[in-house]
């Protein structure tokens, strides 16, 4: 009897939570970043990106993600900066219009926190990275929230005169907020 109840509860939970979600709500999702200029935090964001996430809230470890960012859609905080960062010494968007992230693994950190590992490609350079994130279910949607530091100079973002990290810090905090159904 107890065994039957256990099986039933397993079944019902798999019916309730076993579905993999993959419908991105792009209009509610954001990819933003905070750079530091003369130690002044400056907020920016990318307006155009495509995201494919397949995740089962009951088994986030099996989740996978593929993200492509249209780098020319950047808002770096001011019109001046937007022009500047599309140029050669920054993103060089003419030659490298897109940045991408492809996940390789997700692991649970406990307490509703997870960490995704994967590869980021920017300006033709691919590096392994890890980003912690949280999962939250509310009103029929699943919300992924996370942030991780990215070292811009690892990818050659802001080279030449801009490589002075006392003016623009090497570390940029990248924040993502994805909503899916």
């Amino acid at each position: 009897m107890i065994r039957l109840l256990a099986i039933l509860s397993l079944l019902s939970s798999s019916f309730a939570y076993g579905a993999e979600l993959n419908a991105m709500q792009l209009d509610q999702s954001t990819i933003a970043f905070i750079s530091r200029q003369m130690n002044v935090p400056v907020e920016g964001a990318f307006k155009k990106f495509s995201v494919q996430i397949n995740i089962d809230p009951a088994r986030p470890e099996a989740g996978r993600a593929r993200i492509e960012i249209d780098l020319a859609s950047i808002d770096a905080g001011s019109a001046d900066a937007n022009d500047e960062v599309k140029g050669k010494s920054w993103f060089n968007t003419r030659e490298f219009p897109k940045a991408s992230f492809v996940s390789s693994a997700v692991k649970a950190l406990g307490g509703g926190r997870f960490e995704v590992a994967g590869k980021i490609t920017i300006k033709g350079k691919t590096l392994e990275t890890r980003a912690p994130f949280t999962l939250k279910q509310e009103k029929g949607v699943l919300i992924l929230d996370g942030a991780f530091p990215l070292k811009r100079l690892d990818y050659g973002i802001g080279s030449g005169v801009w490589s002075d990290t006392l003016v623009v810090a090497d570390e940029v905090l990248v924040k993502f907020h994805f909503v899916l159904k």
Partner: protein
Amino acid sequence: MITSARYTFTAIRLHWLVALLIFAAFPLGLTMSDMALSPLKLQLVSYHKWLGVTIFLLTVARLVWRAKHTPPPLPDAMLAWQRTATHAVHHLLYLLIIAIPLSGWLMSSAKGFQTVYFGVLPLPDLIGKDKALGDILKEVHELLNYGMLGLVIAHVGAALKHHFIDRDGILARMLPFLDKEKSK
């Protein structure tokens, strides 16, 4: 009539220090706002903001000091309209030296760039990012500065006129060594 009473040394030091900082911040502001984006521009903008915050703080100190220390009297020979003009210019200068850093601070916030004093102490953003408001505040900041430029010219011109034409010793109230030279 020679006015020998001078300002207190604290008032004199603060006056000249603020004057020096304004003479640095003003051309710096003009120069940097015409520059294309570069690391140097980001540095200069920060230095300009740090100067502005320092000028504001020193001016608050001056006002507190002045509230407790009566300035030396003006020469008896000065006409009523001259006294009125003197007080008006002094009051307007104080007003602008307070208002200009405030407008710059608000403008920075509206443009989405917080002011971080000496790169260490972040000042709160009283208003959120708002491009249209930022552009208006930039105009306000510039206009107030040109207003101050006019007042400073009047202020310096009057001081020189008193010193070289009226020879009433009024400049020695703020430059005591002039008095000592005279007494030699």
